[in-house]
């Protein structure tokens, strides 16, 4: 028998033993679990998702009341997670970029200050920061009846920030449609301009301005056509709390603040590594062309830095999404909190924890896929 065939046979034996051990342990574990579950008369299966959920949730993007299904409650949790995750991703990237540029600034004071921020925020656990911000907001801000009001209509209290929102008026719906149409028109103008430039060497005149005009003018036209209605839904203290207007709850504010500041410090390091990874010749070439440092940064360095930074940034965004689960400790109604309440009510701990795991796996998968697409699109096309 040749050495290779012997090795293949030996591999098969190892794998068979491994598989046997895994299957053996697996059956043992499943057997014990089903025995324990039947002994304790615990239901199995996901049928409970269609039962009525006997609890209220503090805030939700879709209408939800006690008596809706557990499935709807989980949906509320997932949407709340998405809300804080998406906003956190955007804000932490913006703040992270600013801090990264600040760290590379020629100003000694600014650079040192940014470094201090990064070192401090990175080394304190996120949970502690979340609890700290939540306590500061609920204890530091005044109670509802003594809310701060810098401007008429805006109220800040420890029950949240209340601002006026657009009331219900048919014009606003149409304005939104107009806005979408305007964005579509701007995209069309941009695409036409690029195509024309590729074919003839000269794009459309003032494509940026025309696009901006489309985005602004269409909704504005609709607005004026309806007679410029200004229907504001202002918050007013009625009974227990402010009603009307839009509000930001203290839990959401604490989670967003904590997550953003924490992730921004990691993103700043990643983006800084990206900026430093751009060859220094690029900066010199830019200066040779007579561009100021700010323009070089914006037009030459940052786009290339982003290319380097995309994989680690994707990882950072993944971490942000996963760490939003810590907000269960301050009562923000996201997926883990909903799963916790459901677990207390139905006692089906395996199913509830499996839902948490499945939801986050989906988030991770989608984020990784989007990150990969963006990475590939931004990759250097080498001929």
């Amino acid at each position: 028998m040749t050495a290779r065939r012997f090795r293949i046979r030996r591999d098969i034996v190892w794998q068979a033993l491994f598989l046997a051990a895994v299957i053996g342990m697996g059956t043992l574990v499943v057997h014990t679990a089903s025995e324990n579950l039947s002994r304790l008369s615990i239901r199995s299966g996901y049928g409970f998702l269609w039962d009525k959920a006997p609890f209220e949730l503090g805030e939700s993007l879709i209408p939800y009341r006690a008596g809706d299904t557990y499935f709807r409650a989980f949906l509320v949790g997932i949407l709340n997670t998405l809300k804080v995750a998406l906003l956190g991703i955007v804000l932490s990237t913006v703040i992270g970029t600013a801090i990264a540029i600040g760290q590379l600034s020629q100003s000694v004071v600014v650079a040192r200050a940014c470094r201090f921020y990064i070192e401090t925020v990175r080394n304190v656990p996120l949970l502690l920061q979340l609890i700290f911000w939540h306590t500061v907001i609920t204890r530091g801000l005044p109670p509802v009846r003594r809310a701060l009001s810098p401007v008429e209509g805006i109220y800040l209290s420890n029950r949240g920030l209340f601002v006026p929102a657009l009331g219900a008026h048919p014009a606003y719906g149409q304005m939104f449609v107009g806005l979408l149409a305007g964005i579509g028109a701007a995209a069309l103008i941009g695409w036409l301009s690029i195509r024309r430039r590729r074919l003839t060497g000269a794009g459309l005149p003032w494509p940026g301005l025309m696009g901006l005009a489309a985005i602004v003018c269409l909704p504005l036209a609709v607005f004026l056509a309806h007679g410029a209605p200004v229907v504001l839904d202002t918050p007013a203290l009625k009974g227990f709390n402010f009603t009307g207007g839009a509000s930001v709850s203290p839990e959401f504010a604490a989670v967003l603040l904590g997550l953003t500041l924490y992730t921004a410090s990691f993103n700043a390091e990643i983006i800084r590594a990206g900026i430093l990874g751009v060859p220094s010749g690029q900066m010199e070439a830019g200066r040779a062309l007579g561009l100021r440092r700010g323009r070089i940064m914006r037009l030459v360095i940052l786009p290339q830095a982003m290319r380097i930074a995309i994989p680690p940034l994707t990882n950072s965004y993944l971490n942000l999404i996963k760490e939003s689960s810590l907000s269960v400790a301050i009562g923000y109604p996201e997926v883990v909190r909903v799963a916790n309440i459901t677990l207390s009510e139905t006692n089906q701990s395996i199913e509830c924890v499996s839902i948490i795991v499945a939801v986050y796996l989906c988030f991770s998968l989608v984020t990784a896929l989007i990150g990969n697409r963006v990475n590939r699109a931004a990759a250097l096309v080498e001929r």
Partner: protein
Amino acid sequence: MSDIAADRQTILRGARDRLAGFARAFFRTPLVAAINIAALALIALAVPPIVDWAILDAVWTGATGAACPPDAGACWTFIAHKYRLILFGRYPFDEQWRPLAATVLLLAMTGASCWPTFWTRRLLAAWPVALALYALLMWGGVLGLSFNPTTYWGGLPLTVLLSVLGIVIGFVVSVPVALGRRSRMPVIRVFCTAYIELVRGVPLISILFLASVVLPLFLPDGFTPSGLVRVLAGIVFFFAAYMAEVLRGGLQAIPRGQYEAASSLGLGYMATMWKVILPQTFELVLPAMVNLFIGAIKGTSLVVIIAMMDLLGAAQAALADPNWIGFYVEAYVFAGAIYVLLCSAVSWYGRKTERRLRTMRGR
């Protein structure tokens, strides 16, 4: 005489040069100077009130919360009264020297293991002895020490225990997993990949819930390891996957020539890995590993969500005393400072080792 005078001249000149260099950097261009001055002004606005609150107006003595009126500064007397609760959790008061000694021992052993000068056989032999001594001090029950079950362990000792054991055991587990992911045997490769990708896709809190709430259902009736063991298993399970991924990156960077040279020397799989490949891998991945270690230290704070009283949990418990209401900033700053100390120490160690490896390798 002239030597001393000459030395003094050199020192003064050195200081003057450094100052001149700093001034040059500060006033490099008018714009930079303006930004610096504006930034300093902002800092001057923000820092003095903080210093006032933290030091000048702070209250350092007093017996109850009444000693710290709302308009005074920080209430450090709160920390003075509560620091033992925050640091040691609910361990019996008179016996808190035991977790203190045990933690110092553990930290000393960990510190010693980080200096290559100490890497002798004696260190390896010392570890089991140290761990036995740790168990003896914390659990007691023999030699006249009273028995304290793991439910009493808390505060900083719990954080250190979970961090050190989580990192060490996680590292040991991650090596075979990383090697398994690169194995040519498909069954093992698929299994390891599935484990790594699954665990990396879910938050640590869900693994801890699995360990503390779901795991007991899968174990035979009556056999339930203590909450501490289950939580430790969860932390190890989680971080081993991340460490395995980092190791994989390092393994990929080892040139194939190393494997070929080892096999040409007649070394088998285990010998190749242990003596040739893995040492190089560890060197390569050290910076990323240090980041994971810091992540593990911070990750232990999550056990407060499953009712274990680590440093963060103990800080929260200290705030619950009705005699001391509302000193949450002091408590969280105290706990936060300890975390910053721990993580900065690890981070400093990582940077130092990285620099030393770089000079060693001539890169």
